[in-house]
C-alpha cells in the first residue's frame, strides 16, 4: 500500500498512537462464515428458500462483516487481504459448482437407462423406447483405435526427432507448428478430413477411417508434447553410457531411451486417447450416423458414442423421453470410458513411472 489510509477513528476522537495492531482470532473467518450462513438461511426461510439466494446472501454478508470488522480491528491492509481471500475462495467454489452439477445430472439421468440390454443392442429397427449403444461403442473403439495407430508412430518419431536430433531450424518450426496444431478447432479437423477423402471417394463421403484421420490431426500434437516431455526426462548419462559401449544412436534410442521412458509414454498416449474419444463435431461430419453395426472403418457410415448421444438428443423420436434417456445413458457410458482411460494413465505413471522426485 503506497498510501496507507489512517485507521478508522471514532468521530471526534484523535487516533491513539499504538505500536501494535489488533488482530482477529484465528477462528474469526470460520465463525463469521458460519454466522453469515445461518443469518442468510434465516432470511431465506422468512422470504422464500432458494439455493442460489442462500449462497449469494451468505457471500455478501460474510464479505461485508469480515471487511468492516477487520478494518476496525486490524486496519485497511489486513481488511483488503481478507476481502481478497474471500473472493479467491468464492472463485474456487464457483468452479466446483458446475463440476458437481454436471456429475450429479449425468448420474441421475443416465443411470436409469444403463442396463445390460442398453450395452448389447444396436438401434437397428428401433422406434420409440429400447435400443442401445453396442454399435456406437464398437464404432468409437475402432475409430479411436485407428486414430491412435496413425498418431502414435508419427507423434513419437517427431518427439524423438525433437529430443534426440534436436533439429535446428526445422526443429524450431516443428515445435511451433505443434503448438499451433493444439489450437486447431475440432470442426476444422473434420472439414480437413472431409476435403481429403472427397478427393479419393467423391463428394458426400462418410466413413470411419475419415473420422480417424480427423482425430489424428487433433491427437498428434498431444502425443508429441507429452512424449517430448517424457524423453527429456531420460538422464543423459544413460545415453552416454550406451554410446561409450559403441552402440549406434538408433539402437540407443530404441533399446535404452524408449524403454526407460515407456511408462510416461504410455500415460501420454492414454491421455491423448481420452482427449479425443469424446470428440463429436469432426465425427458428425465425416463418420456420420447409422443405426446398425458396422465393423469396417473403410466402408459406409459408422456411429460413435458422442455422435450417438448428440443424435439421440437432436432427433429423439416420439415420444422424446426415450431418445433423451438414450442420450443421457450414452453420455454416461462415454464419461465412464474417459474416466477409465484417465485412471489407467494415472495408475501406469504411478506404478511404472520413473522416480523423478517430484
Amino acid at each position, binding site marked *: 500500500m503506497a498510501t496507507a489510509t489512517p485507521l478508522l477513528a471514532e468521530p471526534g476522537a484523535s487516533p491513539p498512537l499504538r505500536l501494535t495492531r489488533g488482530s482477529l482470532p484465528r477462528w474469526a473467518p470460520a465463525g463469521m462464515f458460519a454466522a453469515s450462513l445461518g443469518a442468510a438461511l434465516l432470511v431465506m426461510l422468512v422470504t422464500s428458500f432458494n439455493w442460489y439466494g442462500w449462497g449469494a446472501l451468505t457471500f455478501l454478508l460474510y464479505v461485508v462483516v469480515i471487511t468492516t470488522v477487520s478494518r476496525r480491528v486490524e486496519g485497511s491492509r489486513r481488511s483488503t487481504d481478507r476481502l*481478497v*481471500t474471500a473472493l479467491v475462495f468464492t472463485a474456487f467454489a464457483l468452479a466446483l459448482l458446475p463440476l458437481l452439477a*454436471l456429475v450429479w445430472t449425468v448420474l441421475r439421468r443416465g443411470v436409469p437407462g444403463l442396463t445390460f440390454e442398453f450395452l448389447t443392442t444396436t438401434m437397428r429397427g428401433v422406434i420409440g423406447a429400447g435400443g442401445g449403444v453396442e454399435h456406437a461403442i464398437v464404432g468409437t473403439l475402432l475409430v479411436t483405435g485407428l486414430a491412435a495407430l496413425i498418431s502414435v508412430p*508419427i507423434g513419437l*518419431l517427431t518427439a524423438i526427432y525433437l529430443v*534426440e536430433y534436436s533439429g535446428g531450424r526445422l526443429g524450431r518450426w516443428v515445435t511451433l507448428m505443434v503448438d499451433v496444431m493444439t489450437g486447431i478447432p475440432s470442426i476444422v479437423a473434420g*472439414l480437413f478430413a472431409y476435403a481429403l477423402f472427397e478427393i479419393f471417394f467423391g463428394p458426400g463421403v462418410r466413413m470411419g477411417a475419415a473420422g480417424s484421420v480427423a482425430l489424428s490431426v487433433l491427437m498428434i500434437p498431444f502425443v508429441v508434447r507429452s512424449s517430448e516431455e517424457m524423453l527429456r526426462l531420460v538422464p543423459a548419462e544413460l545415453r552416454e553410457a550406451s554410446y561409450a559401449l559403441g552402440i549406434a*544412436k538408433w539402437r540407443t534410442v530404441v533399446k535404452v531411451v524408449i524403454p526407460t521412458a515407456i511408462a510416461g509414454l504410455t500415460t501420454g498416449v492414454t491421455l491423448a486417447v481420452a482427449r479425443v474419444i469424446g470428440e463429436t463435431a469432426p465425427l458428425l461430419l465425416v463418420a456420420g450416423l447409422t443405426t446398425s453395426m458396422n465393423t469396417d472403418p473403410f466402408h459406409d457410415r459408422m456411429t460413435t458414442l458422442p455422435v450417438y448421444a448428440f443424435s439421440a438428443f437432436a432427433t429423439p423420436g416420439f415420444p422424446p423421453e426415450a431418445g433423451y434417456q438414450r442420450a443421457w445413458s450414452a453420455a454416461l457410458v462415454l464419461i465412464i470410458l474417459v474416466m477409465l482411460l*484417465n485412471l489407467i494413465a494415472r495408475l501406469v505413471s504411478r506404478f511404472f513411472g520413473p522416480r523423478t522426485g517430484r
Partner: protein
Amino acid sequence: MSAPAAPTIAGGPVTPLDAPSHRRGDRIFAGLARGAGVLILVLLAGVALFLVVESVPALTASSSELPQGKSFAHYVGPLAFGTAFAAAIALLIAAPVSIGVALFISHYSPRRLAGVLGYLIDLLAAVPSVVFGLWGIFWLAPQLQPGMAWLGTHLSFIPFFAGPVSATGRTILTAGVVLAVMILPIMTAICREIFLQTPRLHEEAALALGATRWEVVRMSVLPHGRSGVISAAMLGLGRALGETMAVAMVLSVGGGVSVNLISPQNPSTIAANIALQFPESSGVAVNALIATGLVLFVITFLVNFAARAVVARRKDFREGS
C-alpha cells in the same frame, strides 16, 4: 585399423563402430524421425491448403447459388460476430474465475490439498463437449432462465437485456457460460503453473517486509505471471472460438447480428453452424461451409499464434536473465 581380424571380446566378434550396418540403421532412423517432423508441417500446410481449395467454389459463386441467397461476406459476417460474441462472454466469465482458482490452488489452499484440488479442476477438461451440451440444455438453461427473466424485466433499457426473454433459457448468455466452464480448466492450469514459478525469494522478501498475503500476490506473483495470464486467456479464447457441439446444442438460433444476451433469437457461431448444416448440405453449400471453416481456422490460428508469441518472448527473457 590394420588388424586383419575383427577385434573380439570373450563371446564373439564385436561390430566396429563405423560398420556400414550401423551407419545405415542410423541414417534410416534419423530419416524416419525427420520425416515425421516434416510430415507434421505438411499436415498443417495440408489443412490450410485443402480448406482454401475447397473454399474457392463458394468464394467465386454468385450469391444466388449460396445458402440463404446472400453473398459469402454477408453469410459469414453474422456467424463470425456470433463466434466472437460468445467467446468474449466466455472469456469475461472464465478469466477472473480461473485466476482466482489458480491463486487458490497455488497460494491459498493447504499444500497437501493443492494437488487433489488441481486434479478436480482438470477433471472438467476430460468431460466430452457433447455432455456439456446436454448439461447446458437440461440443467443450466432452466437454472439461468429465471435470472434472465429478471434482467429482462428490470434492466431492459440496457441493449444487452432488451428482450424478449427466452422461455427456454437457450440464449447466447447460457452458451457463453457453458463455454466458460469448458475453457476454465486449461486457463486455470496455465495460470497455476505460472504462479507456482514465482521466484520464492521475491515472495519471501515481500513477507519479510510485513506484506499481507494479498500484497505478496499483488507485488510479486501477479507481475511475474502477467504474460502467462495473458497467454492463458488467449488460449482459452482460441478454445472458445472453436468449440462446436456445446454451442450447437445449447443455442437457439435466429440468425442476424444482435447483442441481446437473453432473447430466443441468437446469432449462431461458425463452428455450430457447420455442425448443424453440414450433414444435410451438398454442392456449393458444402463449399460455403468449408469456407466459413477456413475463416474460423484463420481466426483461431492468429489468436493461438499471438498467445504462443507472448509465451515465447517470456521464455527468452527468463533464460536470458
